[in-house]
């Protein structure tokens, strides 16, 4: 449960039936919890250690209870309200440990967590890939240059086609040279999609017929995990 939750933290229940967030009504299933340490959260939310937040409980809690909460976000204001998705006994409940966790240990814990998340994401994407190769980009052609676009949207992906010389096939079968399409747009809908550049060498998780792809036959990289640095080739291979 905890491994999938976007927010995992160690906390101490300091009030039951209360809420720190004005828009979340206090009730039998709300508790105020002090964040003792953050196990998993985006960087922008990691500095809330020591703050009191509101947890919409999935299961009863006790005053003073210390636990590792898994949660998803509900409301973000002066305080934070989250919905508990899981709970287990905290492994580092003591304040001294908490301080360590929010210091150097926290960095290593964060690195471990990020590595774990990366493995999970890569595994999922690799499983969906029709082929996985290590290759080098030798040329790029903008789709606009290839064919006039009949219609124009600011969210156009600006499909471009990279010519990739394949050095190694990790999954599937491919010719020595493959054409790989990628969204070259910097628009909000596409900026997170991987971009390829001439000379770039990378692990490519290629898909065909992905939702939003220009056609069903082309090899496409669309997801941010679809292009990995070459030093992760072994990692990707191990996940297949």
């Amino acid at each position, binding site marked *: 449960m905890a491994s999938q939750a976007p927010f995992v933290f160690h906390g101490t229940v300091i009030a039951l039936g209360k809420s720190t967030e004005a828009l979340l009504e206090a009730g039998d299933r709300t508790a105020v919890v002090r964040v003792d340490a953050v196990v998993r959260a985006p960087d922008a939310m990691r500095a809330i250690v020591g703050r009191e937040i509101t947890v919409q409980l999935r299961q009863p809690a006790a005053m003073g209870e210390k636990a590792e909460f898994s949660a998803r*976000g509900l*409301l973000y204001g002066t305080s934070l309200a989250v919905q508990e998705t899981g709970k287990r006994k905290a492994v580092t409940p003591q304040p001294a440990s908490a301080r360590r966790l929010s210091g150097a240990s926290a960095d290593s814990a964060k690195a471990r967590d990020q590595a774990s998340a990366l493995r999970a994401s890569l595994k999922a994407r690799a499983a969906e890939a029709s082929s996985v190769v290590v290759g080098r980009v030798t040329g790029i052609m903008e789709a606009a240059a290839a064919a006039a676009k009949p219609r*124009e*949207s600011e969210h156009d992906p*600006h499909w471009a086609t990279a010519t990739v010389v394949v050095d190694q096939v990790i999954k599937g079968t491919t010719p020595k040279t493959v054409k790989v399409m990628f969204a070259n747009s910097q628009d909000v809908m596409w900026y997170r999609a991987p971009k390829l550049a001439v000379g770039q060498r990378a692990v490519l998780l290629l898909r065909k017929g992905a939702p939003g792809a220009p056609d069903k036959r082309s090899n496409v990289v669309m997801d941010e995990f679809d292009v990995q640095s070459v030093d992760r080739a072994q990692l990707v291979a191990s996940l297949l």
Partner: protein
Amino acid sequence: MTYVVNMIPNVFSGEMNQDSEPNLAIDPADPARVAGSAFTPDPLGGANAPVFVSVDAGLTWTLNNIVPSTAGAATGDITLAFGHQGRLYSGILRRPGGLRLNILRTTSFTVPTVMDVLVDRTGSGVDQPYVEAARVFRGAGTGQDRVFVGNNDFNGAAGRTATVDVSLDGAAAVPPPPSNFVARRIEPRATGGQDLPPIRPSVHIDGTVYAAYIGRRAGGNSDIVVARDDNWAAGPAQFVNLLDAVDGLAGQRVVTAVNVPFENFQTMALERLVASDLSIAVDPRNSSIVWLAWGDRPPGTVNLTLHVRRSTDRGQTWSADLRTVADAKAPVVAVNSRGRVAFLYQQLVGVAPNQRWVTQVDRSDDAFVTITSTVLATVPANAPARVFFPYLGDYMDMKSPGKDFYGIFSANNTPDLANFPIGVTYLRNANFGTHTLLAADGVTPVGVSIDPFFFCLTEMPSDQDFYVADWTDSATAFDRGVEPSTEPQFYTRSDVWTRLTDAPGAFDGNNRPVNEAPRNGPGAFGDNFAFARIRRRGTGSAQAVTAHFLVSPFGTGSNYVDAGTAPDAVVNFTAADSVLTMAAGYPWHLDAISSSHLCLAVEISTAQDPVVAPGLLGRAPGWPTTDLLVVNDNNKAQRNMGLGPTTASGWFTRYGLIHNGATIRRDIVLEWARLGPSKRGRQDRVMLAGGREQSLGESGRLVVPDMSPGEHRWVRVTLRAGDDAGDTVVVFNEMVGSLAVNGFAVAARLQSEDEVSKYILGRLLSVLTRLEAFGIADAGPVAKRVRSLLDGRISGRAFLEVIAGAADMLLRWLPGLLERVGGKDTLGIAASGRSLAAALSDKDVPLAQSHAGALVESIDSLLTTADKNEGDLADICQNLRWQAALFSGRRLSRLKSANALVRQSVRFVDDFAARAVTASEYPALMKRSLAALKEATVSLKDKQLTALFDALANGLGNARTLQRRHWEFLLALAARV
């Protein structure tokens, strides 16, 4: 209070997102409830994206994860709009899915429950959904949410992609998609493959819906087009009510063949230009007035130039540029309840690398002849680095929830007060001394990014914004002074009332004032006292509020006159007072000859908070345009409800005067609806005078045909009593198209036989008093007998006796009275007399009460007609408005003297409204107008018209009779031009 707020919540202080392309929605029922959006992801990386919510008018903000999206990402394009009862609608581009339109709804925007998906469409792709919503205020569909989502739908055939998705009842939309939404294509012309992204709706509560779009034509240039639908896009063809003056197709082209660049790459500093710079706003006071702003690239320029124009004829013709701003983007126009327009934009100033984005609002009351400019932010244009396009947003937003303007923009968030000339509040941690953002721990530095900023430009501080509630339901549920007010029946539960004694009386169990039927008569007997309960939206200053009272006949469309001649009442608020009820009433008198069936209105004002022009004096709500004088201005309130008693077996009769307050001949459409829990009774009927009775069902429609300007007719309503659950109440709305511009209500209350007798004898006394004033001396002794009975308990026998005597006298004089109104008994007086005679013969008191009530009311209406036939000072201004309209028309405007006549007529009306002239100056005006009227008469060579002109010219001595002769002349003139 004017303020700018960085909207990023404190707990999210560590964020460095590019929160661009903001949008804003304001709950019309409570402008403190505001929702905002931007390209902001869930701070914890979850699958739902947030909206920004505020319940304190934008002072503080909370992110609420309710928009379905994909893990860790903001949604695509997103716009927001509130409907009725707090429903929030959103149009988004859904992730994952590219150009996948979703239309969403939540019934409570502060509750963290994911929004319902009402529409989910992709096909060839849909772009830039832009949502607006309005509640049907009155008439058919009252209370329904009308939702309009402009979008560029590549599924449109033949490249005609401009589209508006419409729901006529957003609350009733039930998934699965498309629920009850229908995509309406609004582009009738050939395109150069597509229309450009922005399709912007603007909705007026009278059912007028404008939609602006940029039609791209073959060759690459574009037209700026405004389409219009006059009835909520509910008809068989939609957005076809505005035809282009040149090609005759739907949608007026405001400009043609302009260069609207679509450059999806870095063009203005770090920003792109993708042809999304378009905004339209209808004036809430008058749906014929509409403002438009767009951006294009004039020849020889590099960046965009913004243009603002206005139409005052429903989009048919447009002004030249009223405001032009070079090197700017993201224009937004908004109009407040006083007609003030605000123009928001972001301008790129300076020279690279020192360019700055300046976010500015220009406000104007005179079409930008004079401007109040406010710089909200001036920030570096080259930092932070761009993460994606759009850098600041392809558009931003501003709206007016009444008098004030609320808006939202995105900008560099460096905490530097020099960047925010009118000040700024950060909810996130920041050190303004070191210009450093800090994480949630208050220590860790955070890099600069693009944040959304909310602003409020206060046009009137809350302690200066006084109002009279249009409705009250309880001590906690009442009109809070929003403009327009939110309840359709603003004339039945308002805080203006009259009493027979100089004390306001106690409020009832619903915290409503108790109105007493006024009395007419000589001396003190006809003295009445008007009251108002005055509130304000905040406290903090001592203020003196003036209350001015006006009256008009009961019904709809009649013009108001001043209630009395005494100086206006003044109510003194201390700094701490938020609500005060007038302790002493405003004395007003009803002469013996006047009917006591009246509408009562109040206009309150202070030096800082004047009544929005036009005032009610000399006018009726809704005319000459379909403005909603009372609901749009919280300084005005009106009571227009006829309440009477009846026993369980009887019924109550009331006549309403239907006056054509317009300057055109027209059918007046009345729509009725029953309110509350009372059951329909056998006697619940309605009849247009001279016509046939029809049953009053739960709702229905009555057409008063072919009425001339200033003409009046009567509608009779009979109602069975309510029960313990409440009164029987039927509201009648005067409809213009789909908008109810005015209305009245009739209510019957269950009371004891004795109380009913007292009421009817009181009404009889009023009518007898009028008859005496009309010179019918026989009424005097009967009135004396009635007066003596009213002092004590009235037995059934005594009631029958006095009614029998009164009926004899009334019917004896009936023929003579009918002579005064043309001889016809259209009110059914004789029939009431016969029915009463039968009831008297049977000694059936409840039946006799019901028929006696009908007889008394019909005689009262007859006397009002006779009185009005002598002329009516209330209609002087309507005559002059009508005259101005006639002499502005095709035939008479060619006359040499027409222009001068129109000018002096309009000027008198304006001066009358401003109380610079009175009715006593009307004869002098008409004397000055005679030459022009004679020129018209001579030109038409008509004997009857000549005779009427002579009568007018020879009747200049008395303003009242002059009004009638003037009206008769205009009536004849109108029939000939």
